């Protein structure tokens, strides 16, 4: 059956960002508990975070150009609501975590070095109290992103293994075409 799928570019973006964000969450939580690996993990953390921020912007534009396929018509309203709400949360957190990280370094007057001599300018004025607040927010939001990611992963597996409604395949398919719209299942 030729089920509807996300556009190929949307799928590429999704899986690329899935890898980057998962790696990022592990790098972030790992480096704050590691003495030996702190520096090299941090040197990946900053450019990877900025890359994620840039890719989220690309994705938001792409979402307008290539709207996601409709959810199956028989999906209960509660699940539809959960799907939409969790996607809003995912996008909000994907934007907020790197932005707060950038602002936090700015407030702490720590240079935002991407690679070699490539640096980003500060986006908030120096203020150590603000730094402390943003530092705590960065961790809290990252943990919220990890929790939302776990929900998203659980939902994806449920769609693929339990509901078997084609939603998982709409993102996981390797086929180039978008499939036939309006024929869920």
């Amino acid at each position, binding site marked *: 059956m030729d089920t509807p799928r996300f556009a190929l570019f949307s799928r590429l973006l999704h899986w690329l960002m899935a890898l980057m964000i998962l790696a990022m969450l592990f790098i972030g939580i790992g480096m704050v*508990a590691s*003495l030996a690996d*702190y520096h090299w993990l941090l040197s990946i953390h900053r450019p990877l975070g900025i890359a994620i921020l840039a890719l989220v912007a690309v994705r938001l534009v792409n979402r307008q150009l290539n709207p996601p396929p409709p959810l199956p018509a028989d999906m*209960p309203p509660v699940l539809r609501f959960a799907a939409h709400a969790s996607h809003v949360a995912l996008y909000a957190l994907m934007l907020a975590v790197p932005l707060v990280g950038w602002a936090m370094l700015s407030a702490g007057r*720590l240079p935002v070095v991407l690679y070699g001599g490539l640096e980003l300018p500060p986006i908030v004025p120096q203020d150590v109290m603000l*730094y402390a607040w943003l530092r705590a927010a960065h961790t809290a939001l990252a943990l919220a992103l*990890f929790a939302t990611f776990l929900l998203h992963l*659980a939902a994806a597996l449920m769609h693929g293994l339990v509901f078997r409604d084609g939603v998982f395949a709409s993102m996981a398919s390797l086929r180039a075409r978008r499939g036939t719209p309006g024929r869920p299942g």
Partner: protein
Amino acid sequence: MISKPPDRSRYRLWPPSTGVLAGLGVTGLVLAGVAGAFAYTVGLLSPGALTQTRIVDRFQAVNGIHPGFRRNHAKGVCVTGTFAGNGAGARLSRAAVFGSGAVPVVGRFAVGIGKPFLPDTGAEVRSLALSFRPASGGEWRTGMNDIPVFPVNTADGFYGLLAASAADPATGKPDPAQMTAFLGTHPETARALGLIKARPVSSGFADARYNGLNAFRFVDSSGASTPVRWSMVALDPFVAQVPPSGAAREPNYLFDGLVARLQQGPLRYRLVITVGQPGDPTNDATLPWPAGREEIDAGTLTLDHVEAEGPGNCRDINYDPLVLPDGIATSNDPLLSARSAAYSVSFTRRAGEPKTPSEVQVPARPPATPGVPATGG
């Protein structure tokens, strides 16, 4: 007539079929795997490992908590000035700071103690931390001490020494048995402390030599890297310390002396780069490099202004030794990453705490020519 069975929604989980149970089981296993890997990375599953949090916790256990102050080198004063490179450093490093021309510098003199209100005794390690800020970007931060080598070569050693040299609550003095036990298992620290005790101690902050202690790498424009260590060497002539008797000693006499010296005129230091040879240890800050290594005089630091710690000045800078410009890179010294990690925890904690004025205050500068009315008459 056979009636059609009611259409069962594929979204109904109850009563569960075998397929639903299997799907739920796999989903649960995958989630448990990811969450477990996360917990492992956080360190929940290895609570004994030494972390930056535990290092800073130990500082607080030894020194008490002094809100708003650094967990180490807590007592200090801010200075500003410029660094004028002479171009000689550019042979080994492409960092902008080594070109010619003046670079603004924000620095901090301090003593290597975690208590911000302790009177000066003359026995403390003195430090100079600097942030070089070239207009083109590429900030360089460094913290240096007036000792020839660092007492430990690993973070674990540092953590152990911190406990071994802590004052015993019963006596108020370190327990010699603890120190003996620590040195028995850390011969590198015994050797390094010998070198540290034998060093000439200057009369104050102004005439000291401050050493970067850890090895770094300079990277030139072709990408070639050279192991280096660096020092700031006072142009004021070295005068050996003669500690005043306890009664004659002002509680902040070291800092008062620095302020008085700066009120007479700017302080100057030469930035001396010591060039390592193949085989020189770069991963062990307890070991000096052999004498006779090439030294490059890379420029002159001029400090002409001193002020008490306050909002936005040196107080609010994390002198993380791994804030490095392109052209200076970390080495394989494990202390560098550990210092960077622990400084971050200390900075984050004190940043969010209420601030208390520093013990070191800078009096208003006296009139340059006493007796002459300020209006000029």
